[in-house]
């Protein structure tokens, strides 16, 4: 239940077995079924969440009722609405399970306690935040400057195995293109013999 969490933590920082046992007592094990929500728009995001198993999508619905996917989360990833989690404000996000998920949730008070009792976790979450910022900058630059095909190719490189787990229309939403454009790009790549 905590194997992947342990690996991800110890890949970044050193903690003792006792410290990890303490860490485990602060996480809420939660199973989500496919299409169940972890967070819905308007709720306050009370947890930051580690994905042990499964996949989720984070999305918003604009004023015209269209969905825009901000992020997919897979095994070993963290997912949350950080603004809502840290500020206690209502979220604009929806976070939905794409498959059955096994998650580990940590509340704000437990997270603060973890940082206080095991200071190495300050480094862990700093590095996590840094990586997230780099990925976010990369995505922002891609949205501004890349062609649809470049966005698709980069997405496949960054999310190996995703095509088998995420419906095409959701990938299109994430990339900010239509389903038809995505299909055209995939056909074009296949015809060129460059598909992965």
């Amino acid at each position, binding site marked *: *239940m905590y194997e992947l969490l342990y690996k991800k933590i110890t890949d970044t920082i050193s903690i003792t077995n006792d410290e990890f046992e303490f860490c*485990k*007592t*602060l*996480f*809420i*094990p*939660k*199973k*989500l*079924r496919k299409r*169940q*929500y*972890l*967070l*819905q*728009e*308007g*709720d306050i995001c*009370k947890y930051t969440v580690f994905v042990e198993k499964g996949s989720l999508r984070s999305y918003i619905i604009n004023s015209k009722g269209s969905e825009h996917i901000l992020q997919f989360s897979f095994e070993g990833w963290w997912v949350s609405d950080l603004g809502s989690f840290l500020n206690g404000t209502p979220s604009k996000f929806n976070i939905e399970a794409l498959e059955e998920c*096994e998650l580990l949730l940590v*509340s704000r008070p*437990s997270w603060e306690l973890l940082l206080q009792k095991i200071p190495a976790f300050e480094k862990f979450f700093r590095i996590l935040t840094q990586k997230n910022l780099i990925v976010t900058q990369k995505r922002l630059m891609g949205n501004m400057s890349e062609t649809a095909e470049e966005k698709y190719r980069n997405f496949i490189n960054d999310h190996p195995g995703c095509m088998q787990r995420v419906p095409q229309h959701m990938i299109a939403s994430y990339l900010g293109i239509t389903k038809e454009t995505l299909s055209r790009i995939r056909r074009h790549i296949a015809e060129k013999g460059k598909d992965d």
Partner: protein
Amino acid sequence: MGMNKTIAVIASSPEKASAIADTFVNEKCNLLLLAKERDGYDKILADIKKKSKSCKTEFHDCMKDSCWEADAIIMDVKMEEEEDVATAIKEVATQKVVVNIGRECDYKKLQQYLPFSRVKTLSRVPVSFKDIINDE
């Protein structure tokens, strides 16, 4: 909006499960009724379905899996059953509210069996979800 919370109900009889389930008919939640045998539970499921559109109810026979899904756990079991139930759910009940409403409940013992859960004892069946999640 607001997402549906999931509550696992572990009761030593269908009648006790029904009494607990009835208090949630007006709540937006998913109730997982747990027991080894299904006898008597189909009627409870049908009754809740008639009374409520917001409360979805299911029967389960796997305590661990259901409590893993649950956001909170309500027990109405005999004192001699507490330890076995706690052992079955301990791994998946960390940081979850566990309420025992059984009259014979030994709160301190239950907290010992579930050291990392938030054990509460109520003297009456919960009226609303806020009774069991109010300190989230």
